[in-house]
């Protein structure tokens, strides 16, 4: 069964303390892996798409990487404004619909000043 698992569920860091969020996936074939950021009471905001193992994308303090089984979202020297829930979603081949995503449950990141 296709599945996406994010860990940890929650992560508390001090400002400036770098860390990584994990998204592991089990799918028959990968079309793309998406990272989103969601602030309380808002819709998810698109961050990155990764398509193949070895690919990396960067945006400010965030860097996303992809292997054949998982993706990491690395956060370097985070600031309080990086606090949010980070969602991972996978688009798999061989599913009934080409457009459906498999969503992880998210990691809630809290950065303390």
């Amino acid at each position: 069964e296709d599945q996406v698992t994010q860990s940890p569920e929650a992560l508390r860091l001090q400002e400036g303390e770098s860390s990584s969020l994990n998204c592991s996936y089990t799918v028959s074939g990968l079309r793309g892996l998406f990272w989103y950021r969601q602030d309380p009471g808002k819709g998810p905001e698109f961050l990155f798409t990764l398509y193949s193992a070895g690919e990396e994308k960067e945006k400010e303090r965030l860097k996303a990487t992809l292997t054949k089984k998982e993706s990491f979202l690395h956060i370097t020297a985070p600031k309080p404004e990086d606090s949010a829930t980070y969602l991972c979603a996978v688009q798999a081949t061989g599913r009934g619909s080409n457009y459906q995503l498999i969503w992880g449950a998210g990691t809630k990141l809290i950065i303390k000043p």
Partner: protein
Amino acid sequence: DVKVTQSSRYLVKRTGEKVFLECVQDMDHENMFWYRQDPGLGLRLIYFSYDVKMKEKGDIPEGYSVSREKKERFSLILESASTNQTSMYLCASSRRAVDQPQHFGDGTRLSIL
């Protein structure tokens, strides 16, 4: 930037009412989606549309219907609202290609009393 606009941020309705949630996107995207998001259950797809007047069921279509008469507008209809449909409803849109990211509106917090 992609703009997905949902007609209401907050909505309160009574059981048995017919409820309409509206979504408009301004980027000429072919695909549009409706999700609900509940604590502990993550994002679940209700319906999506890949073209005008076309629709496909997602994972939880029961109790809902949709309408897409124009490319930029996608409506979610709760035929007879029930308390278990109290939730955050999110609309998204994407380009036609299967590996394109979905872009979300800010959601409608719907309470059914």
